[in-house]
């Protein structure tokens, strides 16, 4: 039998999940747009990324407040406690991903519309992977699938490999064309921020795994 307080709980959870989903989709779009704005020298797109961060921040505050409300409604049982606290951590990660996207877009604005020698295709490929990881993390949270959450670690290995390859590639480009060094350094920063965004996605996956499976997989040796 479903009591009215249980129904209210369910509604609260659904509202929280909906807002986290919105944050995830927003953060994913921001990563895509930020990297595209750098590669295409699309300054208005870059500005759009920076402007959209405000909405992400608003959603983070909203979810935090709702989680506190959810936890304060009654003495929570273990799974409810995990859901509430982990959601609050996840939105921090999503908000950080948005900040990293803003950082990438700002680099794009600094670089302006000038041209240079750059590994556009690889950076684009890396951004697609990172965006997919953010989506996978959001999906894992949405379906409370701990195993899906842990799968993000495998995706992260590809990001790490790409990160390394791109750093080397940019370094050799800068050595060969010293006049392109400022541009190259900016792109190194972009790649680095993408790599950190992927790490936040992995964090989310691990938090989902903890909430769903009940044991904490963080900081264990990643085999």
């Amino acid at each position, binding site marked *: 039998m479903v009591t009215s307080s249980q129904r209210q709980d369910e509604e609260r959870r659904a509202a929280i999940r*909906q807002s986290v*989903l919105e944050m995830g*989709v927003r953060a994913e*779009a921001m990563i*895509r747009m930020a990297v*595209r704005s750098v590669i295409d020298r699309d300054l208005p*797109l870059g500005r759009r990324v920076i402007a959209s961060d405000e909405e992400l921040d608003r959603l983070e505050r909203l979810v935090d407040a709702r989680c506190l409300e959810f936890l304060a409604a009654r003495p929570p049982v273990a799974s409810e406690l995990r859901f509430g606290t982990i959601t609050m951590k996840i939105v921090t990660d999503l908000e950080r991903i948005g900040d990293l996207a803003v950082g990438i877009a700002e680099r794009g604005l600094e670089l302006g*519309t000038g041209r240079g020698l750059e590994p556009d295709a690889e950076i684009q490929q890396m951004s697609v992977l990172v965006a997919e990881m953010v989506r996978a993390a959001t999906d894992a949270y*949405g379906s409370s699938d701990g195993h899906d959450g842990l799968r993000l670690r495998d995706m992260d290995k590809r990001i790490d490999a790409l990160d390394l390859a791109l750093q080397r590639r940019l370094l050799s480009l800068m050595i060969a064309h010293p006049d392109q060094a400022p541009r190259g350094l900016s792109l190194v920063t972009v790649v680095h921020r993408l790599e950190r965004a992927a790490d936040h996605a992995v964090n989310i996956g691990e938090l989902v795994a903890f909430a769903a499976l009940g044991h904490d997989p963080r900081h264990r040796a990643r085999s």
Partner: protein
Amino acid sequence: MRLELAQRVALLVSVVVGVTALAVGASVSRVAALGPAWVLVVGVLVATGCVVGGHALARWWIGAWLGSLRAISEEIRSGRSGVAVAPDLAALVRAANERASRWDAERDALDARLRLLEDWLECTPDGVLVVDRDGTVAVSNQALREMFRMRPGGAGVAVLEAVRSIEVHDAAVAALRGAPFGPIAVVLEHRDLAVRGYPFSGGGFVLVHDMTDQRRLERARSAFVANVSHELRTPLASIAGWTEALLDQPLPDEARPRAEAIARGASRLRALFEDLLELVRIESRTSDVPLVPLALWPVLEDAALPSVEAALDKDQEFVMDGPEGTFVRGNAEAIRVIVRNLTSNAVRYTQRGGHISLTVEALGAEVVVRVRDDGLGIAPEHHERVFERFYRVDEGRSREEGGTGLGLAIVKHLAQATAARVTLTSALGHGATFSLYLPAADRPEPWR
């Protein structure tokens, strides 16, 4: 109605018959010389018999009525006709059946229209999403499902759960609030999409247009022109540089005019590339020119200076006139380029000793900058086309005068990008007036 009438008539008849029977019974008993008590008994017996009989008769009649009504309703339901019923009822049956078959035809026509709309929706290349008032998906089409790799079905769930796109979500939210949305670009891996949202009586309507090919073409064109210009400018610099160096040296008589021709050609080519690059630059950032309140005259004087000098060389009169302290909302660099092009055209296409004026006039919410000359003028049939790239009214003449054919195209694009507009009034032989309309602004707040 008829049933009630039949029942009443039946009762009335039975009562009349009963009363008559009472009277007949009375006269019979009088004949038989019976006492009044017997008269009453016989009368009541006969009357009762008549009433019971009449009632049975009425029930039978009503039963028959109901039976034929059942037959009629059965007939209407089955859509058949031909069951034996009374003629007036047959008309009822026919009418009902006709109405029913008309309804059937209308329903079939509606079904066909609905199928047509559904087929059209499914095969239309734009993604379509219809959102109910409660924010859930009512309808989505094939194109949308492909664009966003949606799972099949998806009706009845929240927009964000069906379509993982923040732009579609925002468009739906705005439309449900009653505000049109977009167009706004969606960046996907291999696609560029533009999302629009529209409110309608039943909820929200989101339209997604695939811009991939268009964007790819634009990008390719911009990159091509930028690269070509860059590649061409490098050898041109050495041609111009070395020709200049040659001209500084003593040259054989026949060689000097040739070297001068090379120098002129090189300088025209350079002007052309500069204009071409400018045009590409403007076209690639049309939505992105910051507009601020600014004082107009310093910009105009700066822009017109080269033309004033050129006019002196051609013995032309160049007049500038208008109220001081005029402020407009615009972009100084854009206004400078526009006015520089308009004034240099005026000087270029006006004969020696001609008159050129640059005037400013405030017209309510707008400020108009007019560049007027008394040169050859432009025939009305060319007015629309002079703003096109490389369109020339007089091919030989403009080449001779050193125009690139891009100046007015640049003017038009810059005006469009900065909330301004340019118009042309001219008649052949009566000079030309180009008017630049700029939004007026108040004096900017001084720094404190």
